[in-house]
């Protein structure tokens, strides 16, 4: 067992973890952050994406001990004082979710994507979210939600008849 100090959604935790504990297991089982979910075991689906010091990471792909001394933000820590993060609001507004299982990871990745590239093209959004799988939406409204947050001009491009270029 190893002692770690991690801040999760603004709260400091000191916990003993097995060395093999994945960050996602620590978040779900020890901190109780079940909003972050597990969709695969090969780092393909991205459902478990959280932010580590503000950058998106797949929490199934790092060990809890690697988060020692770092700050983790999960889907549960995004809304502040009952006000949704703009990306959460956009997912609701644009119907960018159905079953909701990929949604936590998709929202966390989308926020990071815009942090890197505040005004992405549709193609850049689609490639930026390549590491997050969704089985319900066909991605169209997820792309729209990201464009919605990014700014006014992008959604018009989504409707363009040419579809995605690659």
């Amino acid at each position, binding site marked *: 067992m190893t002692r770690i100090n991690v801040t999760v959604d603004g709260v400091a935790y000191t916990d003993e973890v*097995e060395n*093999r504990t994945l960050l996602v*297991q620590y978040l*779900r089982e020890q901190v109780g*952050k*079940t*909003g*972050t*979910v*597990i*969709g*695969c*075991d*090969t780092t*393909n*689906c991205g*459902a478990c994406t959280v932010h580590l010091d503000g950058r998106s990471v797949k929490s199934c792909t790092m060990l809890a001990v690697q988060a020692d001394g770092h700050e983790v933000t*999960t*889907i*549960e820590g*995004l809304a502040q004082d009952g006000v*949704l993060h703009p990306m*959460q609001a956009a*997912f*609701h*507004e644009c*119907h960018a*979710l*159905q*079953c*909701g*299982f990929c*949604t*936590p990871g998709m*929202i966390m990745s989308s926020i990071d994507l815009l942090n890197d590239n505040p005004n992405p093209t549709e193609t850049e*959004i*689609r*490639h930026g*979210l*390549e*590491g*997050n*799988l*969704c*089985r*319900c*939406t*066909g*991605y*169209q409204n*997820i*792309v729209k939600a990201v464009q919605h947050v990014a700014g006014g001009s992008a959604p018009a491009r*989504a*409707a*363009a*008849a*040419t*579809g*995605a270029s*690659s």
Partner: protein
Amino acid sequence: MTTTEQEATSSQTPEIGKARRRKEDQRLITGRTRYTDNLSVSGMLHLGMVRSPVAHARITAVDASAAKTSPGVVAVLTGADLAGKQGSLPNAWPITADQKAPNHPAVAVDHVAFAGEVVAVVVARSAREARDAIELVDVDYEELPVVLDLATAAAGPPYAHPELSTNVSATWVYDSRQAGTGTDVDEEIAKAREDGVVIERTYRQQRLIPAFMEPRSVLVDPTGEQLTVWSATQVPHFVRIFLALVLGIPESKIRVIAPDVGGGFGGKLQFTPEEVLTVLAAQHTGKPCKYTETRSESLVSGHHGRDQLQRLTLAATKDGTVTGLKVDLLANMGAYLGLVTSGVPVLGAFMYNSIYKFAGYRFTDTNVFTNTTWTDAYRGAGRPEATFAIERLMDDLAAELGRDPIELREQNWIKHEEFPFTTVAGMTYDSGNYEAATSRAKELFGYDELRAEQRHRRESGDPIQLGIGVSTFTEMCGLAPSRVLGALNYVGGGWEHASVRVLPTGKVEVVTGTSSHGQGHETAWSQIVADRLGVPFEDVEVLHGDTAISPRGLDTYGSRSLVVGGMAVVKAADKVIEKARAVAAHLLEASADDLEFTGGRFTVKGTDKGMALAETAFAAFQGHNLPDNFEPCIDADATFDPVDFSFPHGTHIAAMEVDTETGAVKLRKYVCVDDIGNVVNPLIVEGQVHGGLAQGIAQALFEEAVYDENGTLVSGSFVDYLVPSAADLPSFITDRTVSASTTNDLGVKGVGEAGTIASTPAIVNGVIDAIRHLGVQDVVMPCAPQTVWRALRAASTKGGTA
């Protein structure tokens, strides 16, 4: 003020038709979710499943002694331990009286028939300790010959289950001449051979995996009087009934809850070995037990879909009028029959003729066992296969006759003025307008311009060739009229149940027997009830997915929820209004016949006297002053059994670019115009179409469950099973036409499967249209670059005459 004017001023803007944002979203976007694996019960133990690594073997010994002493392990349960308790997993659809099926144990006792089958269960204090101990269970397998290929299996031996002495489970036939719905198909084919056109093809529906995003999970709490089961399932009511039937537990002692469920697509329309085993482990230990599968386990053991070989003969006259269609199907059951495994191909039987006016039709389905994961419902279930076959054939016929594929379809389809139309497969199509949908789709697509570009690319020998793929599909929705299911030997019914309760404070609770797992029933049902009862959308609460709250229901699959479940809600709401009318009439001292109900109020015709629905609810709650002999309650239940299916349709057109040098395929543009009747919530409908398209396109281009020659699933993780990402798909251009259904009061048809059913043939037709002039007649799915390249190469080797 006239009565008409009063109505006009008091009515709200209708909720039905509004793009309401979903009520469900708040908890899902903030991580406050209750997926089964998120739930914990004090003292809960965790299960790990030991799964067979071999596809076919006798189990000669299971040694669990090392596992039992592993840290945290509470118990190890083997087939021998549970043989007397576990019963046999059910098949709810014996399609013929002589259908053959093996015993289907939850945990294998002495024989395994596919790789991934459970052979022992480890119960431990943590999921990690359970998984550690799985490795310590020593199972001796005496391997048996493996049968995987459909045609080989149909001929057999070897047999997937030696005790059956055959791999053929059942053969099911629909013949239009025998059924009295058409002519003899063999005569039609003979005529066409003499003086017409005969198209003979064999198409392969590759094996797919539903790949819902939430891995399945089940939690069983045996403490207390009732056994409480939380399961990531589409069908909590089924799970309850079958736990009772299979394990002999009184049904009244079982409560099944489907909390938040992360997608299903048919993949969670199942009663699973893992559900049975978690119940047995909870009973064995007396403690709450939870099992959550890993993704790899999900892919290897959750049921698969499709996997059929379609041998097809289409007869037509020289002028392109279709006359006969013969379908000879081999359907891969896998190793066992699950809930509706055997019936999935039969669901396609009524759809091969699609929107076209065939004279003669015969459908023969042979269900075959192999040593693979069992198949069952996957989005569309039988109908995508049928649609793929007929839409490919229509393109091939058009090519054979040198005709435009849309024009040829129009020559043969049912005209809008011919509805209702009874087809050669005996179905009565309620309504539709194929001309209108097709015309709109062509316009949005820029059909003529893209045909011109296609010609230009062909003439200039462009290495990037353009193909245009068409699919004018229909499907049957709204499973199902119970009498029809009975005639098809399905053991259950197809009705749906709802309750509507007006609470004393005026808020409304709606209980539905459907079980939403992403479809947005909480929102759509609220819209329906808000309109019906004249109450605010926000005041309606929709409850579902818990057999203690929603005791009657047949759950969610087969695009049935709105068409059947939504109608049950309507019927229950109408009953509430009638009960409330009696209360209002009594309190207003008027005749019930003189009361009008609009905008949530009863008013006495010709007066300004009136009373809100909520007031009648409160009066009923008080019970102080009600009509004589009136039960003090205005709440109502309704069970709705549809009289017939509904038949949505649509025209989908895809522009496909094929790189003739590399075989790379690009979906450049996708247009679909669907007609799903009236729409309750266009936002939700759009979402269903988008997601459906993605799955249908994925069958055409990306996904395939692949076994090696030993029966090991090699596409056993998301590394190898290619669920498309955002980068693999374009934005779709969607629109709708509206032909209201005539088989239900809402005029709705169902949309959950439309995109999946329609899109696969549109894509493959597009790929082939791009390279048909190079001699390619078929590309097997998925149309991966290497497959396309090989098809091109084979055609060029044959000198373009293939």
